[in-house]
């Protein structure tokens, strides 16, 4: 009996204080649960969706929600529920790709700027200042205006918009980390710059950057949906929530379901990542 008690204890103790703070935060847990559900819906879309997302049935055009079509049908008779489910794939993908790209590029620039300082830091940070001088959606529109409308270009645009935030954050953490004793010790032991940066300094940036990136996914999904809504992002016939809203508004007020479900899906997804990001921030930085 005593053995069982001692065996159970270390398992509970394995949860870090940050994880325990995260799990005590109701909003964070709701955010995590919603995110898991969304990812499952996206992954399992081919099995969950009652119809193929682009299967047209012109005899059932613009049908309101019914037992056959829970979320109704659109102007081509396509099942809105199936399109919303498949839209989760596009939204999560086009939300994640720019964040990962922006994170990799921004962190690399911030790492170089903070580690080497001097002229490299000056040049890189002035470039970031210029990018930050634009409101984010305006910068995304400028990039799409340059490269032309389309999903790939919109993803590039949102990635570029997110780079300065990660670069500045990574640089600020690196500036502090490079002065830590363990970095000086590693240098004294003969570690070269790339090793110092990647093995000793970079890990210090991972916590704050993870929080920023999680909050960034919500922003990226909103931006992508906005660009698609304007007709500059994901193009038809791909199932995308922003594009569905853009087309659905033409059939108001009669077919309000075309508006309700894709919009609710975007809001719920962004809410999930915002809750998750807020929860992670509070867990890692309990001062607030």
């Amino acid at each position, binding site marked *: 009996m005593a053995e069982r008690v001692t065996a159970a204890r270390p398992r509970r103790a394995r949860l870090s204080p940050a994880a325990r703070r995260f799990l005590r935060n109701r909003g964070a847990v709701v955010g995590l649960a919603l995110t898991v559900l969304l990812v499952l819906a996206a992954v399992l879309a081919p099995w969950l969706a009652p119809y193929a997302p682009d299967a047209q049935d012109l005899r059932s055009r613009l049908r309101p929600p019914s037992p056959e079509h829970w979320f109704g049908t659109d102007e081509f008779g396509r099942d809105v529920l199936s399109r919303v489910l498949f839209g989760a794939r596009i939204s999560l993908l086009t939300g994640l790709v720019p964040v990962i790209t922006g994170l990799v590029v921004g962190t690399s620039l911030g790492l170089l700027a903070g580690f080497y300082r001097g002229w490299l830091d000056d040049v890189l940070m002035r470039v970031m200042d210029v990018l930050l001088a*634009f*409101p984010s959606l*305006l910068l995304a529109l*400028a990039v799409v*205006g340059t490269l032309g409308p389309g999903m790939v270009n919109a993803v590039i645009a949102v990635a570029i918009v997110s780079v300065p935030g990660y670069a500045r954050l990574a640089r600020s953490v690196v500036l502090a980390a490079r002065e830590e004793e363990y970095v000086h010790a590693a240098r004294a032991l003969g570690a070269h710059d790339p090793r110092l940066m990647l093995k000793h300094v970079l890990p210090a940036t991972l916590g704050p950057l993870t929080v920023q990136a999680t909050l960034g996914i919500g922003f990226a999904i909103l931006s992508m949906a906005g660009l698609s*809504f304007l007709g500059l992002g994901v193009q038809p016939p791909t199932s995308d929530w922003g594009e569905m809203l853009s087309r659905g508004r033409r059939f108001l007020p009669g077919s309000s379901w075309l*508006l309700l479900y894709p919009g609710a899906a975007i809001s719920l997804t962004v809410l999930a990542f915002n809750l998750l990001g807020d929860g992670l921030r509070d867990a890692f930085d309990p001062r607030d």
Partner: protein
Amino acid sequence: MLVYVAKRLLGLVPVLLGVVLLVFSMLWLAPGDPVIALLGESAQGISARQVEELRRAYGLDRGFLEQFVDYLGDVLRLDLGTSLRSSQSVTSEVLSRFPATLALAGSAMAIAILVGGAFGVLAAVYKGTWIDSVAIVVALLGVSVPVFWSGLILMLVFALQLGWLPASGSGTWRHLVMPAAAVGFSSAAFIARVTRASLIEALRQDFVRTARAKGLNESRVRLKHALKNALLPVVTVVGLQFGGLLGGAVLTETVFAWPGVGRLLVDAIRSRDMPLVQGSVLFCAVAFILVNLLVDLSYAALNPKVRYG
């Protein structure tokens, strides 16, 4: 204070130069030939000889730097080029749309400050109660719900179903109500979050305890002592939101067919009108930078630590 203003103005010069350089580079970064990019849709069916002639006529055969200096000179003279679509001056096109954008941004910010400020203060004062929980949830929804969706829902309910307000267009104050409410709700959420956090922080400070110890009325302590000190971060967010709206109310302007600069930009992108895209982007970015400068200066005026720091 004058030294601070001069420093901030000088600091703006490289940023503004960088912004102009970036906007100028859009033509060069566009895939394909800059002449084709500049011609937009009218480039279809054009011969190689005509392209070369136009390249010389537009001065695009010169070096990048030489062209940039010329462009900078034009920008300083407020000449942003000629729109391909309307053959009108880009400057006059953008300026003719600016009052509509300013009206939308101004009224949206008024709503945002009133609603967001009130929610933020209530949430901070009643921290941990159901009022705080409601305010947090509403603020979270405000930052998560896309502004074009909330705009469409407002349109569906108040224009198409109840018929109380016009669904789109401009001309009267009634046209402004829904776009301003949609944008205002979204900005209010940010303001509420910052006001709440900042006021909670201020209420913990020693001067608040001192004010209470002096026997001051609680509402006076909260509103006069704490709120006044909590306002600095709020001013920053208000400024950022307002600056963003001057160029970023694109989505709402599109939903309600509001004739602002944002919609002009989207139409220009769709019709590949490169000079109009560049001009609108530059105008909005400069407006954003100038609003941020004003915020910084007001920050310095409110907080002596900033100007002497």
